[in-house]
């Protein structure tokens, strides 16, 4: 059962080929079995998931079901959930259970999906390898000596190892797409504002966006449909119509203009040619486009993201929730020790960076300058979309790297996000797709769309997956 996609499970459950209970028993057994080696779950929702599965079976019996009833999903441990802990993979929240439900998880819950557990991640989503987790690193199912990528590494590994057909993720600088590429799965980062951020623990508010990680594009369309839309609780969520994403998956790509951003292909070690030629066969025309300020996206991002993070993480002060140090001598001691004990090294580094770039005398040189660069980068994309319909580029400069390889060198780690970051700065949607293997490790590409043009990305991705089998490969040790 674990090899099925959501769409396949949907059919089997509706046909009553097997019960929800048996499906979840099977998945939970696998999760328990493999989590020791992969460490992709922080919390396994065993009892509660089985209860819900029984309820779903009853609903099927009564014919009282929706499209998503009884389908399994895992949630990145950054989404607040009322019935499970929400840790953000931090000691700070190691014992925290949120008193409310995030919009994303609530929407999926309301539509009948059942959560198998909360997945591992980089602490507070800060990292590209999952190594900054307080609960230990998660491993890549294709090679457990390698990282699954980050920050949504646990979600990517769980989907790749077929412990769940789908998982939620969040993407601030590539945190859905990079692990999706490293683990050989499909990952969608929607347009900023497409999906509500309510209940998603904030890292960098102007960049964070919730998305989905699945085994194929059709499933991503199904899930995006379920979570997209305006939310009155998130002032930055857009009031913009949500189309039927599944309805346009089969449209022809004939005449669609595909742009290849020049700076993404310079010295590229990852071979995207096979995928590009499929798009050509599908009738798309291929054009070279320029994104002149792309190289500046990493420096701009590492000013903006730490600045916002330094402020967003101030609420973790040991007063109303989260870790509190023992016997604080005074107020300063309460703050300083609670925070120093609760946060890991990478989080502290980013808080310090952000504090510095926002402080008096540096604001203009760093923060304001970065926001201006951000404008230039966005304008490059806006200009590119005047002549092409969507863009194609790599997700990562390399395949998954070894655990520990970049951990001591933050800057090199930051540079592994070089192809993904600009899309967050611009606020655009992007879809990561598996596109082959190099030395037995998956490689991924990303399709980048215009604002709110997820439908076209899903259409193009689905068409690619109709012609190729890269997305069907699974790591042998977890079959």
């Amino acid at each position: 059962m674990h090899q099925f996609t959501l769409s396949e499970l949907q059919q089997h459950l509706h046909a009553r080929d097997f019960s929800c209970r048996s499906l979840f028993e099977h998945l939970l057994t696998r999760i328990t079995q493999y989590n020791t080696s992969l460490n992709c779950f922080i919390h396994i929702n065993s009892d509660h998931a089985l209860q819900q599965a029984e309820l779903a079976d009853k609903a099927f019996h009564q014919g009282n079901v929706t499209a998503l009833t009884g389908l399994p999903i895992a949630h990145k441990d950054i989404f607040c959930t009322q019935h499970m802990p929400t840790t953000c993979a931090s000691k700070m929240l190691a014992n925290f259970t949120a008193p409310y439900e995030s919009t994303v998880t609530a929407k999926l819950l309301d539509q009948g999906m059942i959560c198998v557990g909360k997945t591992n991640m980089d602490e507070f989503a800060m990292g590209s390898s999952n190594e900054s987790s307080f609960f230990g690193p998660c491993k890549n199912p294709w090679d457990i000596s390698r990282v699954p990528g980050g920050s949504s590494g646990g979600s990517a590994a769980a989907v790749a190892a077929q412990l769940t057909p789908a998982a939620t993720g969040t993407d601030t600088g590539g945190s859905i797409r990079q692990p999706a590429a490293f683990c050989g799965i499909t990952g969608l980062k929607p347009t900023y504002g497409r999906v509500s951020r309510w209940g998603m623990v904030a890292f960098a508010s102007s960049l964070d966006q919730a998305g989905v990680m699945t085994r194929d594009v059709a499933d991503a369309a199904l899930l995006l449909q379920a979570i997209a839309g305006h939310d009155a609780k998130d002032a930055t969520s857009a009031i913009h119509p949500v189309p039927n994403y599944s309805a346009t998956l089969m449209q022809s790509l004939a005449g669609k203009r595909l742009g290849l951003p020049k700076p993404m292909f310079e010295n590229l070690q990852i071979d995207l040619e096979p995928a590009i030629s499929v798009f050509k066969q599908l009738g798309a025309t291929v054009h070279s486009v320029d994104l002149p300020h792309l190289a500046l996206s990493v420096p701009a991002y590492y000013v903006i993201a730490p600045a916002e993070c330094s402020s967003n993480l101030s609420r973790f002060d040991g007063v109303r929730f989260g870790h509190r140090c023992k016997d604080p001598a005074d107020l300063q001691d309460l703050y300083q020790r609670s925070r120093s004990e609760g946060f890991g090294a990478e989080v502290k580094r980013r808080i310090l960076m952000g504090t510095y770039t926002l402080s008096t005398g540096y604001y203009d040189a760093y923060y304001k300058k970065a926001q201006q660069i951000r404008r230039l980068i966005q304008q490059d994309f806006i200009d590119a979309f005047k002549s092409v319909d969507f863009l194609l580029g790599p997700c990562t400069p390399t395949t998954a790297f070894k655990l520990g390889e970049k951990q001591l060198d933050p800057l090199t780690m930051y540079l592994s996000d070089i192809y993904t970051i600009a899309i967050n700065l611009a606020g655009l949607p992007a879809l990561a797709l598996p596109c082959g293997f190099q030395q037995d490790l998956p490689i991924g590409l990303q399709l980048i769309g215009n604002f709110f043009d997820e439908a076209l990305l899903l259409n193009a991705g689905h068409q690619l997956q109709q012609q190729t089998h890269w997305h069907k490969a699974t790591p042998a040790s977890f079959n």
Partner: protein
Amino acid sequence: MWEAVIGLEVHVQLATRSKIFSGSATNFGAQPNTQASLVDLGLPGVLPVLNADAVRMACMFGLAIKAEIAPTSIFARKNYFYPDSPKGYQISQYEQPIVGKGQLDITLDQSQKSIAITRAHLEEDAGKSIHDRLPHASAIDLNRAGMPLLEIVSEPVLSSSAEAVAYLKALHTLITYLGISDGNMAEGSMRCDANVSVRPRGQTQLGTRAEIKNINSFRFVEKAIDYEIARQIDLLEQGGRVQQETRLFDSHTQTTRIMRSKEHANDYRYFPDPDLLPVNIDPQWLQQLAEQLPELPAAKLERFQQAYELPSQDALQLCQHPALADYYEQIIQQAQHLKSNTPTKLCANWLLSEVLGQLNKNQQSIQDCPITPQQLAQLVVRIDDQTLSSKMAKQVFESLWIKPQDVDDLIEQLGLKQVTDNSILQKIINEIIQQNAEQVQQYQQSTEDKRKKLLGFFVGQIMKQSKGQANPQQVNELLIKALTN
């Protein structure tokens, strides 16, 4: 030889039902933390959404002080750690406030001065740290966190505590007129920080200022500023220097002292709040808002003086609070039904002295007045048409206060109708003259000044005979006639 320069930062709590960024109630005096929701507590993952009414109220204020309303204003984060600041930052407007430069006219010692207002911006209030509640610990109540505030910043153009208080009072009157705040200073709906500096008279450069935080009454503003001016002058005259610092006013000692928690110069690291989009004001909406603005204090004052022919002192007093002005106008309206030539001045006298006197005694406001404008109008008309003497009217008023009812019925019940029928009065006078022949003789032989004394005697007898109901003016006239015949 010294002159003081004062600028005020006034925090006005806006009269919205819910908080500025959350759906929590804004009621005063709730049990601790029962009005603190997810958003107010700054739990992980929560987001602020701006209250539309807070924006509307800020714009109304801006229009009333003839300021430019920013087409786009921006919320920023002011980052600092403090237990009453749950997120570790306060959401406030920094570089682009919603209300720009404006002005407010004040009257002091019968001269007018226009006070320049630098800006007014929206922000959220902090919670409260309570230090005397728990042993060896501070107790944090976040009910106030997220209350909507409009911070109104004046230019440093006030030169005395009296001017500062006059400005504050004018501001208070304006916000109550606009209905954008209840202006209740005791409950903290209007709080003031005063920036005070002194300099040698004639010097253009400003002296170093001290900021006195969180003063919450007109009287304390006066005391705090006076103390601070004296302290700074003393310091300078002794060769010392004023430190730029934050101070607190202690109402018990009536002095200011340095605020220890603010000793560290903070670096607030302002930056635009990424959770909130810029606030865009639609010019058409603003135009409509301007048209719907209620009558403002200055306009009302002028209208009262002209339409009701009131002396400026009365008009000023009536216009201080819109509810009082409204009550007055309701009296006038009711009185006009009863009498075409309405005694507007008499209405003002009764409202300002008797009604307010009674209310003040009970520490009540005009909204609590048990007597309706209609009843008060009836009473005043009965004085005006001489049914009641002013002494009788007071008696009626007192009964009315305890048990509001129809004034004519009450007059009847109390048997207080004034006797104005000349024939009845003449009859009583004749009786009294007959009974006091000796005094009549004395009167007729007396000089003018002695006569006055005797006249008093006769009037007293007549009033006694009429149980106080005789119209004294008529009695006087008739009596003099009778005695001189």
